[in-house]
């Protein structure tokens, strides 16, 4: 718990400083007060934990994101093509995909990654299945190959 608080504090300080742009005594003091207040409030709300502060993922997440960006780039081009070519080319598909992630966090990352990649949307997230809607059947096939699943599972393991 403490860990998460400290990390949140640091992030919040950065957030304040980057937003503020005024570094006089008064505003800094107000910033400290504000941050403390926010910390107090969020603790009261019980929203500071490993889910909101995924510290354990920090060191692997960048690599994954780079890969994700690449995927997004590719699928973007696909979808753009579909848009300009028109309706006839699309083959909307709905399919359930098994996922291997254990933690909620992993599931969320997976679901969000699917949605983030254009062409696929995670429609429903139930236990260990994700219902995916795809613009094109082919992109679903790519997903079924499980590359993304594997990467996230790897991310998840500490």
């Amino acid at each position, binding site marked *: 718990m403490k860990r998460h608080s400290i990390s949140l504090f640091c992030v919040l300080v950065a*957030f304040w400083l*980057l*937003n503020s*742009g005024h570094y006089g005594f008064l505003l800094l003091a107000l910033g400290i007060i504000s941050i403390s207040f926010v910390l107090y409030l969020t603790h009261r709300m019980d929203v500071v934990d490993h889910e909101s502060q995924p510290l354990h993922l920090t060191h692997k997440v960048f690599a994954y994101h780079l890969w994700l960006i690449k995927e*997004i*780039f590719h699928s*973007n081009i696909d*979808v*753009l093509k*579909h*848009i*300009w070519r*028109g*309706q006839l080319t*699309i*083959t*909307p*598909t*709905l*399919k*359930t995909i098994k996922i291997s992630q254990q933690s909620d966090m992993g599931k969320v990352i997976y*679901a*969000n*990654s699917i*949605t*983030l*990649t*254009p*062409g*696929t*949307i*995670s*429609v*429903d*997230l*139930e236990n260990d299945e994700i*219902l995916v*809607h*795809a*613009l094109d*059947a082919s992109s*679903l096939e790519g997903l079924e190959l499980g590359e993304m699943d594997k990467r996230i599972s790897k991310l998840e393991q500490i």
Partner: protein
Amino acid sequence: MDLVISISSGICLLLGSFICVSGSIGLLRFPDFYTRMHATSVTETSGVALILIGLMILSPDLLVFAKLVMILLLGLLIGPTTGHVLAKAAYHNGLKPKLTKSGNEQSSVPSSERGGDISKS
């Protein structure tokens, strides 16, 4: 140097706006709700990203840059979340996607989950 900046940002902006417009056209052209979602997700990812990157290149100071980054991160975090939630809600509330025959594998609503818990007023 200025030239590089303006050209690179120009390219980013141009591409971004092209993608945004494309996304909107997709929003109009696609046949049903789920397919339209794909179109918007184009805008929300690469369109937003490219435009914001274009602006980042132009940004005069760190603060503006930081804020643009924040907007970008926020967009990338919120976009898929709302998309997912929206799709889920639509699906659970009985909006059936139009599917091609081949992929029509699971078309029934998982009604057991929600059908019973709604009291009619």
